Structure formats: structure tokens, C-alpha cells
């Protein structure tokens, strides 16, 4: 069986490289490897027999041969060419990563009011208490084997810390670049800690500058403290041969606000797992997602919102436009615990299929144990509105243009939620070009050639 070989290879990868993995990593994160590896060994890479992966077949993704290295890498990136590509450009403080690793010479950046961005190694040395307090505390290795695999293999990533009452003038933009000619497998780890009453704007951009076959298995843990506010955006703009799997765990303390948008514009396989724990009272959580996919691409968004305490609001809006033979999946699970009275939870998933060959699977779920709650969910899969098309054409608008207007209107509901003006406009432009079929051919960067 293919899956057995995949699991054996991954286990061997761990066993044969464990010395390098540990040597080039922080002792704090090394502590968690063994138990995480055991969990991975037990479960293996999820297959179609796992309910959550029924619609996302990972075998073709994992059976490919990727390069892996656990030694530090020396990456040269010509940053002057960077923004000629489709990388989102805005007035932000930019940090570059490659394969999810910190590559800038200065391994730590300190901002006024004590805000920090640092590599894992640097952060665990300089701020061991904070780091240790939050690392591997929010994820779950028992029910997410890919998160377990990440915990076993991850060496570095980005640590963002906002101390109590802090904020930054500009948003923080983290750009993860895939620049190697040959494909590789990488496990990135991020930790974001927003302390009490702090406010943060953080943008993660995944961009590829070359066309190798990549497999990224990223895990991000986010702690949003009491009355803290985090606006968190993810823009996934890679290419048809890239595979991007991410598990994001969010822990929300009392009265915190988490506002997030994930925009999947380009990628071969994109799988986003979000696990939001509304752990204390008065939390608010908004999650928006937009996937524009074509060819044989696949995106899947799996969201789990856990209402543990009363008076919390959560809201999910996920939309997909699928062209050609693209496939997509959505699963939204809202769990309302017995004590989580006065919960307000909404969940909406809307999808448009442009061809007969495209396929979307959607599973909105509510699990409610409290009796005084307001919860709603809905999912639709359909085509562009024929009547609206005719109406526009009857005003002289060509079919192609009318289709564009409708698709953009559909997509824009998710984009307009972005709270940073420049970012919103950037995503609107990217989405419009993507819908026009332009995005896969970057105008300015010869390095970025995409298999049609």
C-alpha cells in the first residue's frame, strides 16, 4: 500500500535525522518531539478513511520525492525583485522567510512598546519563559497527525510577541517564499502571542518564486489574551505544483477578538485546518475564506470552533469558485458546550461551480449542548445566476464581462471583510486578475513560470 510506504519513509526521516533536527533547534521545542512522533506513528498521514480527509486525498501529495534538510540553509533572495511579483505590497513591516524559516541576518526585530518578531531559536533563548509558556500548548497531537508530524520535525519558524497593552503603527507582514529550483518538504512552526489588551495586525503571505514541487506542513499556534484584538490574514499565492497544508490553533481568552481572512488564490493543493477555542466568556471570532481554483487544484478549509463559555460570538463565511476540474471541500464544525449559553454562532459556505467537472463537498455542522443559543448554518453549491447573466447581457454587457462581474461580486463579500485598506485593495486586484486568468502568468518576474 502506498500509504504504508509513505508512513514508513516519514518515520525513517525522523529516526535517521533526529540528531540534526535536535542540534539545530531550540531545546524547548525538542522536548515535545518524541511524544508527538509517537502520536504520528500511531495515526500516520490521514487517508480517505479518515472522515476529515475523505475529500482531500493526500497520497499523491505525500508519495512524491521531496528534498528535505534539517541543517541550516543559506538562501539568497534578491528582494529588489520581490514586489514586482504578485506579492502583496503595502505599507507594512516585512519579514522574509524561506521554507518557513527565518532567513534574515538579524534574527530578532524589536519594535516600540516591546513588540517582537524573532526566529524560534532566538526567541527561545531570549524569552524562554514566554516561549515555553505558549509553545505546543494549543495544538492537539492526538487528533491531528499532521500537526503531530510538524511538532516532531519542525525546527524553526516565526515567533511574534505583543506584550500587554502594545500595538504597532504598521501591520506586520510575513512573507514565506519558496525559491528553490528543486522541490522540498518543509515543516514550519509559528507562535503568535498577543497579551492582554494588545492589538495586532498580522499578514502571512505564502508566495512561490520558483516552480519546484513543494510540500509545506505548517503549524501555527495563536494565543489572543484578555481583551486583545488580532486581525490575521493569510494570502496563499503559490503555483500548481505546490502543496500547502496548515494547521492553525487559536486560543482566545476573555473578551478577545480574533478576526481572520484566508485567501487561497493559487496552489496545487491547499488544506487549511483552523481550530478556534473560545475558552473564556465574551470572545468574538470572525473567519472569512475565499478560494479561487481551477485546473486540477484542490483547496479544503476545515474549521472547528469550540464555544466553551457563554456570551461568545463566532462567524464563518467561506466561499469557493471552482473552474475546470478543480475540487474543493469545506467542513465547519461549531461545538457549543453545555455552559456556553447566549452563544451566537453563524456559519455560511457558498460555492460556485463553473463547469460540470468541478466538484465541491461541503459539510456544515452544529453540535449544541446549551439551550439558550442562536446558531445558524447554511451551505450552497450552484452555478452563476442565469437570470442575472441575461439581465446584464440585455444591457449590452458581453457574456465574459457579465460572468466576471458576477464572480467578483461573489468573491468580494469575503474580501471586503479585510480591515486593512491597502491589503483589501491588493487582494481585490489579485482576485480580479485571478478571475481574469492573468495571475498564473506573472508579468514582471521571469523566475515565476507556472505550468499551464
Amino acid at each position, binding site marked *: 500500500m502506498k500509504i504504508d510506504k509513505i508512513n514508513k519513509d516519514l518515520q525513517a526521516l525522523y529516526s535517521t535525522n533526529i540528531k540534526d533536527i535536535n542540534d539545530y533547534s531550540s531545546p524547548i521545542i525538542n522536548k515535545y518531539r518524541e511524544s508527538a512522533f509517537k502520536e504520528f506513528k500511531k495515526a500516520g498521514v490521514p487517508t480517505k478513511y479518515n472522515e476529515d480527509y475523505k475529500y482531500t486525498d493526500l497520497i499523491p501529495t505525500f508519495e512524491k520525492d521531496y528534498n528535505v534538510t534539517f541543517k541550516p540553509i543559506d538562501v539568497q533572495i534578491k528582494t529588489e525583485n520581490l514586489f514586482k511579483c504578485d506579492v502583496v505590497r503595502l505599507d507594512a513591516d516585512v519579514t522574509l522567510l524561506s521554507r518557513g524559516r527565518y532567513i534574515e541576518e538579524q534574527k530578532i526585530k524589536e519594535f516600540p512598546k516591546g513588540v517582537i518578531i524573532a526566529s524560534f531559536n532566538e526567541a527561545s533563548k531570549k524569552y524562554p519563559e514566554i516561549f515555553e509558556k505558549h509553545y505546543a500548548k494549543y495544538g492537539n497531537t492526538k487528533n491531528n497527525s499532521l500537526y503531530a508530524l510538524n511538532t516532531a520535525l519542525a525546527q524553526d519558524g516565526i515567533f511574534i510577541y505583543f506584550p500587554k497593552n502594545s500595538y504597532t503603527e504598521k501591520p506586520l507582514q510575513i512573507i514565506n517564499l519558496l525559491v528553490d529550483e528543486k522541490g522540498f518538504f518543509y515543516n514550519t512552526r509559528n507562535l503568535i502571542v498577543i497579551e492582554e489588551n494588545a492589538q495586532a495586525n498580522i499578514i502571512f503571505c505564502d508566495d512561490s518564486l520558483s516552480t519546484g514541487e513543494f510540500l509545506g506542513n505548517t503549524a501555527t499556534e495563536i494565543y489572543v489574551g484578555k481583551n486583545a484584538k488580532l486581525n490575521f490574514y493569510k494570502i496563499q499565492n503559490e503555483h500548481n505544483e505546490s502543496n500547502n497544508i496548515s494547521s492553525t490553533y487559536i486560543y482566545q481568552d476573555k473578551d478577545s477578538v480574533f478576526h481572520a481572512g484566508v485567501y487561497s488564490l493559487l496552489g496545487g493543493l491547499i488544506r487549511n485546518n483552523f481550530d478556534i477555542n473560545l475558552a473564556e466568556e465574551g470572545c468574538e471570532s470572525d473567519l472569512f475564506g475565499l478560494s479561487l481554483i481551477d485546473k486540477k487544484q484542490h483547496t479544503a478549509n476545515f474549521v472547528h470552533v469550540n464555544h466553551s463559555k457563554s456570551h461568545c460570538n463566532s462567524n464563518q463565511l467561506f466561499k469557493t469558485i471552482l473552474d475546470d476540474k478543480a475540487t474543493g471541500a469545506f467542513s465547519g464544525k461549531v461545538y457549543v458546550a453545555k455552559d456556553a449559553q447566549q452563544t451566537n454562532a453563524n456559519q455560511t459556505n457558498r460555492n460556485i461551480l463553473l463547469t460540470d467537472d468541478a466538484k465541491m463537498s461541503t459539510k456544515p455542522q452544529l453540535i449544541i449542548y446549551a439551550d439558550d443559543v442562536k446558531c445558524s448554518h447554511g451551505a450552497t453549491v450552484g452555478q452563476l445566476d442565469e437570470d442575472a447573466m441575461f*439581465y446584464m447581457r440585455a*444591457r449590452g454587457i458581453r457574456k465574459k464581462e457579465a460572468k466576471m462581474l458576477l464572480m467578483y461580486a461573489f468573491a468580494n463579500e469575503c474580501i471586503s471583510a479585510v480591515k486593512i485598506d491597502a491589503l483589501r485593495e491588493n487582494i481585490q486586484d489579485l482576485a480580479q486578475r485571478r478571475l481574469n486568468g492573468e495571475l498564473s502568468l506573472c508579468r514582471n518576474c521571469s523566475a515565476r513560470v507556472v505550468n499551464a
Partner: protein
Amino acid sequence: MLKIKNLKAEINGKEILKGINLEIKAGEVHAIMGPNGSGKSTLSAVIAGNENFKVTEGEITYQGINLLELPVEQRAAMGIFIGFQYPIEIPGVSMVNFIKTAVNEQRKVQGKEPLTAAQFLKLMREKKELVEIGEKLTNRSVNEGFSGGEKKKNEIFQMAMLEPKLAILDETDSGLDIDALRIVANGVNKLKKPDTSTIVITHYQRLLDFIVPDIVHILYNGRIVKTAGKELALTLEEKGYDWIKEQVDGKK
């Protein structure tokens, strides 16, 4: 301007138009009246190019060109405007963006430069006054959440922006109160130029008090059964449609 010869059309295999003959010359206002289900809306849909209706026989020429061969958008660009009985709501597409795209798409086909933003805004301001439509409506998504009257006003606003040569107003009066009716009708009258033509499709004579037709046709059971001057509308108002039905059905 528009010539319709022995037009037959069906939907889902059911014949609705059973041989329509009609000629509209430049500058004329025609009213097409008739009881419900007689084929009035089908006629406007077929002229517009709605692909749900299948033309089985006959021809439509517009300015000497075979209209039936042209796609919907091209008919519009050539100056045919349909005021829909049930305007469609398009959530997320702003009225401004919609009408700007329509105007410029039509200009492209007509070989004209697209309007600049300033030109467009000026034109829109002028035309909004004409149909007494507020800022509020143009800032919203197309027809979304509009009342019945607002939707009809919005149709006439679009007509004003697109300046068609032939306007076909399909039951523009349905669902309108008398004030809204007056505004809509005034708009249509103000937009009328000596060489443009209008077809008013209506069930009731009331609209024709405001938009005075040159010729009135009665459509019944898929055929035009009577054509006369504007006095025909008054007769209908007085006697209803039954005498027509009797006349036609009796003849068989």
C-alpha cells in the same frame, strides 16, 4: 425600424406566439395590450434574445438586420432596450459599476471611446434627476432590496443612461402607484426623441394617459387581433377584454 413577420415562438414545446406581424417606424409609439397569458412578455423576451424561447418560424429585422442571429448583448448595443417586468436583483454588483460597464461596453461596440470617470458621473447626475432617483439607490447593489416602484424607476434610469433607439417597456406600470407611474411615464416622455421608437406593453389603459401611443395593438392568444389608434385603449378600458375574446374565439 422594427419589422416582425409571422413570428412563432415556443417555450418547453408550448407554442406561445402563433404568427405575429408588426411594424414599428422610427419615431412611433406603439402600445401592445392584451389579457394575461396572451404572449405580451414572450414577445419582448424574443426581441431581447432570451434563449429560453425558441423561435420556430418567422423573422424579426431591426434597421434591416436579421435580429434573430444576434446575441443578446449585441442587440442591446444596437440600441434595443427592454424595460423588464421583473428586474433582476444582482447582489454584490454595485449599480454604478453595472451601468458604467453597460455604457462603456455599448460604446465599444459603437466604436466610441469609453467615458471617463468625470464624464460618466456628470451623465449619471443628469439622468438621475430625470427619473427622480436618489443617490441612495445608485450606491446599492443592482435592484437589491429595491421596492417595486424603485425597481421600475431604475429601469427607466438605465434606459436614460443607455439612450436606446427602440425601447420596449414590458408592464412597466405593474405594481406602481399613481405618483410613481407619473414619474416613470414622465421619464419615458422626456427621453423620447423624434427618431426613437417606443413599444409600451401593458395590461391597463392608465399608463397610456401618460405615454400617449400612436398605435394600439391587441395581442390575444399569440396573435395580434386588432390594431387601431389610441382610442382603442379607451374602448378596452370601458369594455374589458371579453368582447375581443368573443370576437376572436367566435370567429373560429
